[in-house]
């Protein structure tokens, strides 16, 4: 007897797959539960908290100088910018007048951090798409920045340089020379990045038209940073709410309207050029002055609340301090860019293939400790 094959036997069924917490392209311990129809993604559900350290709760028991050191454990690629955010917030509350020297150095350090973060992102993006070579190219150039940071503040990861009221130490005598050397070096190397990835046919095919995010969705999902600017959402904190030395320098806010992976990629590459131009404008014009404004050993903020946003390499990082006049904040909230950016992942990835999801995640540039906090 021939068995009759019914239509329902041939129907494909959705199945689930656990991407992470240990997966090469989630860049950390992010767990995504994918519902798949064959290779096509129907739903992405993020499960967070694998490295949730409850930093916000810890902050409620720490003094402000200690809190600074917790922030670079969140987005370890934008550590200086995160530190700066807390410092700015505390300084704002204390109404401290910060000398220009500190502002300029903070801006240079911040832009170097952004560059090094984008270099790492570029390398990892290539690796996610299967071009492992780009990873080492990215790290080759990042090494120079890491060396500068090592000389400046003594660490290569989880660096601390900013303190409420200024900087820990003055810049190293080599700092200006090495930074200029790096800019000269990287200006030659950045076009190489384009040769290796941006102009590659396969790379373009893999990223163009993938993971589309409209401007309205970007705003609604709270997406910020280069991810949102590629969709046309003008959200650069450095432009809209300038802090440190950003009101003194000329730079463009990179905006694109495509909103796909390739646009996000282009945005970050263009941002690297902008960062270099910002550093070039400032590096020879560091004003003289003290590197620190005297503050009390244990800072007590007055009663009140302050919100400070800065632009990290991933987007808008916010520090929200509610103080009751104690040496520790009553409540401290970190608005991390990765957390909001992640929420748009499901929206962007639906209907794509697994390989596209990897590309989308890479262009979101997620740092998991930043999301989990």
């Amino acid at each position, binding site marked *: 007897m021939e068995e009759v094959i019914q239509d329902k036997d041939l129907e494909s069924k959705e199945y689930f797959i656990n991407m992470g917490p240990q997966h090469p392209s989630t860049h950390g311990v992010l767990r995504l539960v994918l519902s798949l129809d064959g290779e096509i993604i129907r739903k992405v559900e993020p499960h967070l908290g694998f490295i949730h350290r409850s930093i916000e709760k810890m902050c409620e028991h720490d003094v402000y100088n200690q809190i600074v050191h917790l922030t670079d454990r969140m987005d370890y690629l934008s550590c200086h910018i995160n530190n700066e955010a807390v410092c700015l917030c505390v300084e704002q509350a204390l109404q401290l007048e910060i000398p220009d020297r500190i502002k300029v150095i903070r801006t240079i350090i911040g832009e170097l951090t952004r560059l090094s973060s984008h270099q790492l992102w570029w390398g990892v993006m290539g690796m996610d798409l299967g*071009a492992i070579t780009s990873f080492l190219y990215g790290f080759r150039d990042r090494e120079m920045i890491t060396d500068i940071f090592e000389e400046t503040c003594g660490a290569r990861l989880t660096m601390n340089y900013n303190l409420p009221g200024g900087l820990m130490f003055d810049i190293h005598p080599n700092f200006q020379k090495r930074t200029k050397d790096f800019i000269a070096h990287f200006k030659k190397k950045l076009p190489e990045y384009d040769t290796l990835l941006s102009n590659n046919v396969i790379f373009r095919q893999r990223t163009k038209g993938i993971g589309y995010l409209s401007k309205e969705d970007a705003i609604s999902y709270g997406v910020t940073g280069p991810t949102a600017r590629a969709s046309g959402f003008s959200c650069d904190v450095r432009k809209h709410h300038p802090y440190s030395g950003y009101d003194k320098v000329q730079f463009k806010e990179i905006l694109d309207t495509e909103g796909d992976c390739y646009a996000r990629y282009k945005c970050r590459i263009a941002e690297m050029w902008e960062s270099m131009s910002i550093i070039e404008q400032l590096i020879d014009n560091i004003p003289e002055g003290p590197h620190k404004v005297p503050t009390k050993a244990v800072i007590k903020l007055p009663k009140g609340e302050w919100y400070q946003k800065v632009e990290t390499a991933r987007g808008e990082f916010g520090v929200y301090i509610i103080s009751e006049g104690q040496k520790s904040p009553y409540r401290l909230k970190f608005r991390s860019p990765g957390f909001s950016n992640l929420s748009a992942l499901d929206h962007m990835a639906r209907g794509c293939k697994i390989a596209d999801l990897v590309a989308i995640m890479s262009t979101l540039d997620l740092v998991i400790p930043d999301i989990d906090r």
Partner: protein
Amino acid sequence: MNWLYDFNYLTRSIHESLAETFEPATVTIVEMALAGLCFMILFALLGLVLVYAERKVSAFFQQRLGPMRVGKWGTAQTLADVIKLLMKEPLINKNADRFLFNLAPYIIMIASFMAMASLPFAKGLQALDFDIGLLYISAVSSLGVIGILLAGWSSDNKYSLIGAMRSGAQIISYELSVGLSLLTIVVLTGSLQLSTIVESQANGWWIFKGHIPAVVAFIIFLIASTAETNRGPFDLAEAESELTAGFHTEYSGLKFAFFFLAEFANMFIVAAIGATVFLGGWMPFHIGGWEGFNNIMDYVPPLFWFFGKVSFLIFMMMWFRWTFPRLRIDQLLTLEWKYLLPVNLMNIVLMAFLSLMGWHF
């Protein structure tokens, strides 16, 4: 030193010395065992050399040194890796289909062994010289996909399954292009026997003699064969950033080493086929009219020519792998069915026309 140029002397003398002492049946068995042993040694050596080469080549593409610690310039690194892999615990998933799980790596190994048997390494140095050699080789080399499918199916892991399914779709598609691009040259040679194909290139390699269609066929062969060996940019079956390690996610220790080794063996095999069909196999490089030059070239033993060409092709494949990003599965299939296959079919018709008119050299 004659045997270096024509291995018939060597094989005949071995055969004769064996025939003096043993009966014909025993002679056959001993010869088979000898050949088998030779291939096993070759296989092991290939693994050692190619893994080292890949690591060094990739290192140089990435501006680093690669393995440097074990032995001079890290030459013994692969050996150390082999020892490491042998000492690893062979893990099997609780719900895995144990029989198929264990069978899969052997199927892949057997497929590459079988393909290697008919490669003409040098004059007279060929274990199986069928009159359908090329057909046999392309048939056998695609058997490996059964191993990959089994590995993916039996692993009890969805990543493995996706990887295996991708691999199945990919190899079946690209098998067509490999076959057709080889057929383009067969149109010229009129024979599927590998030794005849090599002999027919005594006065020039087909890539030079066959005009543009031969070059087109060679390029298509390079692309398709890279895809057939599951190497980057077509390594979708493994796709470590998507599927962790694809079909061999669950394998460890020796069985993983088999997959690893088979990948390199397959790369060697497709490079050898390419070298044989397009680049004249073990034939030296000749330029018509330049007698002195040709004589010098003749002094280089055929074995060196063969391995030189194969290394060149392998280097090309490594170059691809360490430069390009990976394709997506639908782009991969689009490339084959919408571009390579039609181009290939037109190419073969063009070649047939050229051959008919006698417009090739």
